[in-house]
């Protein structure tokens, strides 16, 4: 009951000291934040911050010691410097996350008042949310959502009314509130109008972009081929295509500068897609593509129409005008047996498909010239020669490819002879062009893991692949996968070219993994893939064809209003009557029985008076009533904690007591 200086509303809150319980919970919240960001920060950095947090907790345990201002100032300078040294820049998502995590720990170091702690909790919530910018899968969303609990518990512990060791009780309001507000949160999620264009920056630049980029240099794909993250999931209308046909076309690269391949001018020139002659049945399928921050939409080779909100390039590549910053869902039709541009190539296209930079790779050029002379310019024969070279020339598939020099093709073909898909596709296309066969590089995904439980194809980033297309007269652009010709595989399983296993062996838990992935797929389609287009169709069942931002805003306001109203109604409900212990219940039972005889206790009548009155009214049972009354009064008022066995006896005696009115 120690009075403290009052703070009228609106005035500065007097900083009161931070207790042990809220401080411990604050440390737990910050530890959660560090854990949420650990996957994409350097391990030593996370460990250092966690160590600092632990040291602070230890230092403040039991005694209220402060951290010196100099130390904090030094850290304030050191954190951005260290992050800049590690990442090369303080800007960007990962350096930003590293810096804010450091600053959060610094805030804990200086937290001595409830006000500090509240600020730190708010800061921690924000940083928790930013962890989802790196990984918005279902698992990490649930995990991060659960990590809000310690933060809310800290807020609760900063308020009065908790026992010193009541840390479990501190979690209760947060858990209740999060669970109770889930419906409102979901409605808000559905109705908050999405932005058509980002307000600032391009969300997917730098290290944040994942998946295949539209540039290919030796070694570029290496990090992808070891990445087991999901790239997309594809559900087919009928049977899935055969394993050999599972090539998913992304970008077509025309230009080569001696080291890297680019889409080039021929691809970017605005032309209609080249004609395709469909030879077999077409395949209809739905694709859920996870955020790649790129423009490419992947489709089974070769797509014959474009989905909504996408465009088809002249090379039958699909691309979206907006970068894929959130999960997208689209439906395409493809032909697996086709002739792509079987008629004569336009001169400009042919020139682009044969262009090679001067002054690179003389030995490869000489080899190609020899093939050309040997086969008399027959494209199919030259392709066969090249594939034979890869098959029998001592080439190996290895993700750990040695570095290549200036003449990268020569070095690969004649020296290292070790590489993975992009080395082979690059070298093969170079050889074809040098031999006078129009050729180009295609990058995309190949293979995939068939989920037998829910019947869809799961494509991981490790399924990334590069192959070639050559143009042969009468047959058009023909897909050639030089990597498939390589016989010696050093590192099987992780690479796309190494069979169709995608890193999951035949384990007993495979069916369960399939089931789990079904949930992930649902999450990707419905939650991550919820975009402006889906949102605009939200009110179709109600006759509104296109829900504009205004309509959504009005609906949101209505929902907020209704939710608050419902909440107020729920909050005003409270249990009827008083909390009753066994003693009070027994006493009430006695009163009810007496009331049946017309002996009603008045609202201003104390128990003693009442029982005196009833005893007088029921002379036959006066003694029993007086005994009951005195026992009740003794149990109720004489001692704070009446012995339970006496209460039990009293309850039994009340149960046995039957008031009888004297017949007059």
């Amino acid at each position, binding site marked *: *009951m120690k*009075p*403290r*200086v*009052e*703070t*009228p*509303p609106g005035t500065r*809150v007097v900083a009161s000291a931070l207790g042990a319980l809220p401080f411990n919970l604050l440390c737990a919240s910050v530890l959660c934040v560090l854990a949420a960001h650990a996957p994409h920060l350097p391990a030593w950095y996370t460990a250092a911050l966690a160590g600092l947090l632990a040291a602070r907790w230890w230092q403040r345990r039991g005694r209220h010691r402060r951290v010196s201002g100099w130390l904090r100032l030094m850290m304030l300078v050191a954190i951005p410097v260290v992050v800049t040294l590690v990442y090369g820049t303080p800007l960007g998502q990962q350096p930003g996350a590293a810096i804010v995590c450091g600053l959060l720990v610094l805030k804990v170091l200086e937290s001595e008042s409830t*006000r500090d702690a509240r*600020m730190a909790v*708010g800061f921690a*919530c*924000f940083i*928790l*949310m930013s962890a*989802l910018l790196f990984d*918005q899968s279902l698992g*990490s*969303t649930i995990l991060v*959502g659960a990590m*809000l609990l310690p933060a*809310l518990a800290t*807020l*609760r512990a900063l*308020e*009065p*009314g*908790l026992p010193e060791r009541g840390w479990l009780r501190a979690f209760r*309001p*947060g858990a209740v*509130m*999060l669970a*109770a*507000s*889930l419906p*409102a*949160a*979901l409605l*808000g999620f559905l109705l*908050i109008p*999405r*932005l058509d264009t980002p307000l600032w920056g391009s*969300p997917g630049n730098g290290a944040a972009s994942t998946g295949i980029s539209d540039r290919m240099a030796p070694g570029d794909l290496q990090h992808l081929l070891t990445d087991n993250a999901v790239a997309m999931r594809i559900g087919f209308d009928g049977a899935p295509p055969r394993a050999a046909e599972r090539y998913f076309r992304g970008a077509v690269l025309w230009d080569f500068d001696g080291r890297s391949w680019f889409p080039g001018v021929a691809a970017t020139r605005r032309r209609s897609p080249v004609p395709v002659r469909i030879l077999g049945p077409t395949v209809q399928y739905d694709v859920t593509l996870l955020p790649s921050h790129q423009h490419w939409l992947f489709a089974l080779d070769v797509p014959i129409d474009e989905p909504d909100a996408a465009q088809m390039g002249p090379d039958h590549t699909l691309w979206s005008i907006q970068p894929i*910053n*959130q999960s997208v869902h689209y439906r395409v039709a493809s032909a697996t047996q086709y002739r792509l541009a079987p008629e004569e190539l336009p001169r400009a296209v042919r020139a682009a498909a044969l262009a090679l930079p001067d002054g690179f790779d003389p030995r490869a050029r000489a080899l190609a010239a020899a093939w050309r002379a040997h086969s008399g310019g027959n494209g199919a024969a030259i392709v066969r020669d090249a594939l034979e070279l890869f098959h029998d020339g001592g080439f190996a598939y290895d993700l750990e490819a040695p570095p290549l020099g200036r003449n990268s093709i020569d070095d690969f073909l004649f020296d290292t002879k070790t590489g993975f898909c992009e080395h082979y596709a690059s070298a093969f296309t170079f050889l074809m062009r040098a031999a006078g066969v129009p050729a180009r590089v295609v990058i995309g995904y190949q293979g995939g893991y068939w989920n037998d439980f829910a019947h869809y194809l799961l494509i991981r980033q490790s399924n990334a692949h590069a192959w070639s297309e050559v143009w042969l007269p009468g047959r058009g652009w023909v897909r050639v996968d030089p990597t498939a010709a390589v016989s010696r595989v050093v590192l099987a399983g992780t690479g796309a070219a190494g069979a169709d296993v995608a890193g999951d062996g035949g384990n007993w838990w495979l069916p369960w993994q399939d089931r789990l992935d079904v949930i992930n797929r649902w999450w990707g389609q419905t*939650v*991550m*893939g919820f*975009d402006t287009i889906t949102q605009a169709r939200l009110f179709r069942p109600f006759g509104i064809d296109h829900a504009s931002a205004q309509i959504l805003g009005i609906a949101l306001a209505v929902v907020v209003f209704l*939710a*608050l109203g419902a*909440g107020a109604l*729920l*909050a*005003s409900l*409270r*249990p009827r009557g*008083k*909390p009753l212990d066994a003693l009070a219940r027994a006493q009430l039972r006695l009163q009810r029985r007496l009331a049946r005889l017309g002996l009603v206790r008045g609202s201003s009548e104390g128990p003693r008076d009442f029982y005196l009155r009833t005893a007088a009214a029921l002379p036959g049972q006066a003694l029993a009533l007086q005994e009951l009354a005195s026992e009740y009064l003794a149990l109720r008022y004489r001692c704070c904690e009446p012995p339970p066995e006496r209460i039990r006896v009293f309850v039994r005696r009340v149960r046995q007591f039957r008031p009888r009115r004297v017949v007059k």
Partner: protein
Amino acid sequence: MDTIARGAGPGIATRVRHWSRSLMRGRQPEPLPVRLDSHRIYIVPTRAGLGFTVLLAAMLVGALNYQNNAALLLTCMLGAALASSMLLTWRELHDLNLRSLHADHGFCGARVPLHLAFADDRQPRHGLRISIDKLEQPCPLQPGNSLATVTVPTERRGWMALPRMQVSSTLPFGLFRAWSWITPAGHMLVYPRILRDARPRERHDDPNDRIAGGDEFANLRNYRPGDPIRHVAWKASARHDHLLVREFDRAAPGQPLRFDWNALTGVERETRISRLTSWVCDAYAAAHPWILVLEDRRPIGPASDAAHYHRCLSALAELP
């Protein structure tokens, strides 16, 4: 048209009157019991609540900008949870029922305890605070323990209207502050200020002084049969399991002290009252009988018991 016109005139006036009365609810004295219904609870975000609003807005903009639905969902959940904590805060006060209260006797200038008895309900109200005259005092309520004590500042002797109390809470997260006003009808009596630096009574103030001898007692000893009952030191005895009796330097048990208003001349009126008050207190503490003589009133006493003590102090407090 006719019915509307007829209905609207007095209707609006009545409504405005009702409305203004509901605005004033809690500010006008009202008889107990006072139940806090939903019409008299006010709630606004605290500074921390405003800070979190800004934070949530930043999270929302960030999630929308990065087109990250998982982050948006998280923001929605946190926002909904924090917003609905408003209802919990409101619930802390809603249906609070102040059944009765009684004020202790206190001296002017000190904080007088005010005992509040709330209706016992099933809901614990851990975060309840009551502020009286800008002093916030925590008074947590629990099922089975619905009594609270707050202190009231006093500035004037005499009958004082019961103070206006602000009942407030910021539970569960400190983001909202709900409050309501309760002004119980009734008055409490504040005894006059005790003059701490009261000059000891001088000989000429009181001719009985010499006879009465030391009103300072020397020590306490155990009760022996035959001791005058008024020498029992009740307060001290309460701390022991046997009776204690005060021994005086020069016991003059038969002679009560005489505190005479008219004998105190040359001092200001309030100082006079305060001086008499301190003397009464001293005499009561010494368990020495005394007589209080006020201007144009019958002398009170002699006696030395609690009833006499309170009668004297009340008379002093009620002096015009």
